[in-house]
């Protein structure tokens, strides 16, 4: 319990700053319990006496560190389409982690059908973290950028809200804060963490970041950890190892994608995604309901 206070990410420190200040004094027998949201979106109860302000780097330091990435890493995600049953736990965890409104998706589970007579399936779609990203190319102010460990990030302290990156992204991976973000008042005064893009800001872009803040802490991304069905594998291409978020099993990345004939989305566009899909073959769960008549192309 003692280390809990320190391990809170930015999202965890949602109590007002005055509350935190009052807690820096040692109160041994407080007995007052308060509820807090951890960086993984869990609600926990702690004694007031044990609260300490988290050691957070200052804004500029955070932004500098966030631009560099984790040295020597090359993050990849593998999504096993045969395992997805549209539980949407990934979407929930993601929205809690990144302060998103219900209609804002960093990861979106889509109902897909590739052609008229082919089988429908569920497809979780995060940002593809392309190695040739169309979005970062068009950014006029370098607010969205590709780091050395492969993650495409956003600096919402710099974004001017031109939305060129939304137009450029063929995967519709980006969302915009059209209004004040969810729970804006709760996050007021919280130092911006570029690796979680929290607090969100009105008039700026947001998107999936592979939970870069959690990676720094040695954890798997929120969506990967939240999945109950073993859909997600996440890991480091340099180490050639990916870990399943549900079973915690670690396997060879190259073997996994080779054996299962993995593919990337719309590879013909030359974007070189870092998210690999295993085909929806021998699906563990039947497709429920009807495929929507939305824009499918």
């Amino acid at each position, binding site marked *: 319990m003692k280390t809990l206070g320190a391990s809170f990410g930015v999202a965890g420190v949602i109590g007002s700053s005055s509350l935190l200040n009052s807690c820096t004094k040692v109160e041994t027998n407080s007995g007052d319990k308060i509820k807090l949201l951890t960086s993984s979106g869990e609600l926990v109860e702690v004694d007031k006496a044990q609260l300490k302000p988290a050691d957070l780097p200052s804004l500029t330091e955070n932004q500098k560190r966030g631009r560099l990435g984790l040295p020597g890493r090359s993050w990849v995600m593998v999504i096993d389409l045969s395992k997805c049953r549209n539980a949407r736990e990934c979407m929930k965890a993601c929205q809690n982690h990144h302060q998103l409104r219900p209609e804002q998706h960093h990861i979106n589970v889509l109902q897909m059908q590739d052609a008229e007579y082919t089988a429908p399936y569920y497809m979780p779609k995060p940002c593809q973290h392309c190695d040739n990203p169309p979005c970062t*190319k068009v950014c006029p102010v*370098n607010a969205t950028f590709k780091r050395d460990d492969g993650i495409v990030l956003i600096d919402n302290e710099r974004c*001017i809200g031109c939305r060129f990156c939304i*137009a450029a992204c063929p995967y519709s991976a980006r969302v915009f804060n059209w209004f004040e973000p969810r729970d804006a008042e709760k996050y007021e005064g919280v130092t911006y963490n570029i690796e979680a893009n929290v607090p969100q800001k009105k008039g700026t872009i947001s998107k999936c970041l592979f939970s870069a803040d959690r990676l720094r802490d040695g954890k798997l991304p929120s969506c990967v950890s939240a999945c109950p069905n073993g859909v997600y594998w996440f890991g480091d291409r340099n180490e050639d190892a990916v870990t399943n978020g549900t079973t915690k099993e670690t396997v060879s990345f190259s073997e996994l994608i080779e054996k299962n004939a993995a593919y990337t989305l719309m590879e013909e566009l030359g974007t070189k995604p870092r998210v690999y899909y295993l085909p929806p073959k021998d699906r563990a769960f039947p497709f429920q309901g009807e495929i929507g008549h939305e824009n499918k192309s």
Partner: protein
Amino acid sequence: MDKIESPAESRKLLDKITHDLTRSIVKKDELTRFWFFILIMFAGVGLWGWIIQFRTGLGVTGMRDYVSWGMYIANFVFFVAVSLIGFLISSALHLLKINWAKPVSRVAEQVAIAAVALAGVIIIMDMGRPDRFLNIFLHGRFASPIIWDVTVITTYLVISLLLFYIPLIPDLALMRDRMGNELPKWKLTLYTVLALGWKGKAEQYKIIYHAMRVLMLLIIPVGLSIHTVTSWLFAATLRSGWDTAILGPYFVAGAFVAGTAAVIVVMYVYRLRYGLKDYFQDLHFDYMGKLLVFVCLVYLYFNINEYLVPGYKMKLADGIHLNELFKGNFSGMFWLVQITGLLLPIVLLLFSYFRKPLPIAIISLAVMISAWFKRYIIVIPTLEHPFLPIQNVPEHFQHYSPTSIEIMITLFSFFAALTIISVLAKLFPVITIWEYAEDQGIDKKYLSEKPKN
């Protein structure tokens, strides 16, 4: 032109020309005041809309995560398009020594300045964080087409202002010298300052000719760039309907259509309002009509290329986009634009009757309206059909329709542009007096004479 020998005749003619062409400046009536009242009121309402948008967020518009560019961007493209006419008429036609276009060039520059200035304002109004505008200069990345656009648009504005101002200097001096008792003091001071002590010496004229020539040459690449780069904001993406190599020239051709129509409308208004029948003659409308047919034909050629080639193949995403235009949600707008904005002017303007001032002004107005909707169907349908399905979002994310705030702000841009044109027309002659007088055979020495009375 033959020189007029008799000095008396020259002086008399010059007096008449000066009187006619400065009528717009001297004239004061209720209608003018009413016009400015309307302009400023509507522009004010639009600004108020922008304040609401700034406070609440861009969510007050109809735009959402999929259709993330809407009417503002369509309107921006329209204004950039209209501004290109300054380059065509006051540079290209001038350099080709096409004499009839000379009296039209100042109108073209007025339109260009107003349109390009407002294009810049509109883009700021479309930003989610206009308060961070300076980031473009602090953190600008030259790999982004937006930075190219900002660069060429500001350059174009500066060159257009110079192309407006430099030929104006002798006129300013003329008004300073001749109109002392007709004008309020502040106007006279303004002219005196802006005339930069012009004396009408031969070497001064030489400098002006030289400067104009340099600017006319400079504006060619810049003018072509503004609309080509604007097209690249779309062509640089991977989306169906935008991802085409001809978008640059296609946009430039379309820009000439919109701009020519705009100049014809403004010319007609000046002719009517300021009694300039002898200056914007039937002949000018006739030639402008022929110019409009010509640019429409070029644009038609690009339209055929743009729609026929992908329409022949009907690749999956292109097919969805084209079906939407030809017979889907946007078909009404699409056919209106193609017929009224393109086919009709080509056919009608072949007949000399329709090139008379009133008919051609009406046709031009229709062309302008079509040109605006053309930009709308360039921007929106493409965004409504991304590659992956739109799911798990509210219904209104799928289809875009502009809100009243967006319409208010768009109207602001129109009224603000009209305000700029009106102010320029009330401050400076709408035709270059000295150039016109010279073409009438009046020697330059009479221009700098002070009237005796």
